[in-house]
């Protein structure tokens, strides 16, 4: 065990390890972005890439590491670099200390994802990028290639500096935070607190992203009642979204259905639902 702890301590200041993980993060982001898990896949990919350095020779632990992150995760990819760094740091710490639980890492990941998405989208997509684009258009409007080249170069350099700094900072503070937690006597109080935060934020993000509606309209002679707006929304907003979520939760937890099976069942449900106007 001591040998393992020494190795993991060395990993905490290993620049090659952090660089390898950074490039894994960089290449994994465009690989596979789906509505089901969004950036969740890239988190798994990054961890899969460095798994054998965190848990050398231990395939079962590597599997568990990756499996833990096969969940929904979305943020702005640039500012989000700090989350990837923090997760990496905490996973390295978790490798030699059980105090850091997977639930804690997931909660912190989700709690940070929302605000960084909002901040990142406002800062990078809505501010920095339009400014660079305006400059570029000014340069290229008569047909010159300069504007386009400037746009590519300026954006890539700014993005690179931002992401690399954030990733490394995230890693450093992920480790510091995890070590502080491990050595303190506040663990039993901090962990439930973080979990509550994470779960609350997830509830909010889900409600923002999903909106399952019904198109059913009940007609009685002259009058018609729109089931969605007149009945369901008045009762509880987005209640259908909640119902779908609880059904899926039950299928995953009790019936142990795989994600693929649920998705394949959703296809006929969507088709028949739409054709019968039960789903809109």
């Amino acid at each position: 065990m001591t040998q393992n702890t020494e190795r993991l301590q060395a990993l905490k200041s290993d620049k090659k390890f952090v660089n390898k993980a950074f490039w894994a993060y960089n290449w994994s982001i465009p690989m596979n972005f789906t509505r089901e898990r969004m950036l969740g896949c890239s988190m798994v990919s990054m961890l899969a890439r460095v798994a054998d350095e965190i848990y050398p020779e231990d395939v079962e632990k590597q599997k568990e590491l990756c499996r833990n992150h096969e969940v929904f995760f979305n943020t702005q990819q640039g500012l989000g670099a700090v989350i990837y760094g923090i997760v990496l740091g905490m996973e390295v710490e978790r490798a030699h200390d059980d105090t850091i639980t997977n639930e804690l890492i997931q909660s912190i990941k989700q709690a940070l994802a929302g605000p960084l998405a909002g901040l990142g989208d406002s800062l990078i997509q809505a501010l920095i990028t339009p400014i660079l684009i305006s400059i570029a258009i000014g340069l290229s409007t008569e047909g010159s290639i300069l504007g386009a080249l400037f746009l590519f170069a300026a954006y890539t350099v700014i993005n690179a500096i931002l992401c690399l700094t954030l990733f490394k900072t995230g890693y450093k503070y992920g480790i510091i935070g995890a070590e502080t937690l491990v050595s303190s006597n506040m663990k039993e109080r901090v962990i439930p607190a973080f979990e509550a935060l994470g779960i609350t934020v997830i509830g909010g993000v889900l409600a923002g992203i999903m909106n399952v509606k019904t198109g059913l309209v009940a007609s009685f002679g002259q009058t018609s009642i729109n089931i969605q707006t007149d009945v369901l929304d008045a009762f509880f907003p987005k209640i259908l979204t909640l119902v779908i979520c609880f059904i899926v939760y039950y299928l995953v937890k009790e019936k142990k259905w795989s994600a693929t099976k649920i998705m394949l069942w959703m296809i006929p449900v969507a088709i028949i639902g739409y054709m019968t106007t039960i789903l809109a």
Partner: protein
Amino acid sequence: MQITILQAILLGLFCFLVSTGMFPLGWLSMNIMSKPLIHCLIIGMIMGDMKNAMIIGCVIQAAYIGQMSIGGVATLPKINIALWFALPLTLVSGGDAAECLTIALAFAAVQNILDTVGNLVKVGFLHRQDALIEKGKIKQAWWFPAAGHIWTMVSCLVIVPVFCLAGSAVISSIVSALPPQINAITSTFTGLLPAIGFMILMVTLIHSPFQWIYFLFGFVLAAALGWDTISITVVGCVIAYLIFQFTPDKKMAAAGVEEDDD
């Protein structure tokens, strides 16, 4: 002047490379490569008409300056693939930006369907990554999801060269032949998908049924009150801090018990 076969193939190839988001520098260049001006830069190089490509590109880019991707959903109609046949056709016919945009936007409905099918394909590869991890093939699992771009490859390498060589008349007849329900059904299906990712996450996090109340709280703040994510996070922090404050410190409680015994 016509688009040559070589140019059509190069256009298809670069459309694919750029559309994956992985060319040339992965995430570092991903967002900027998706901007119309950069598409026009490469198209201009292939067509050998950089000046007009840039002039038209600037007009289109100005129209698309507000294009953002929020939660993976674009705010303006996506013309990323359509530009790769719309601009070349406009360059050879000597048209202007308006003509280019018209051709590109006409394709937007088809683009939607392509994107949804692409999402399905990618989800398949995503689940295959899970399976690889279960088998212990961790090294392969790292890069495997990239293979999901096979749909991007097929659609770019087929659509772009074919439309470039066929011309704008063919494009409009194909677009008008599509039944309107397909778009709606694919939207409904896509709207259900996030439930899977989220609920798998909840299975990990929830170990007591009472924790669902936090989920419902966040849900209500967003659904009933319309709060944004940052505000919900702030309230979540308040709850977290209260829990932290009111959870008894077990070590101090144990020390207190020991003192009482004296």
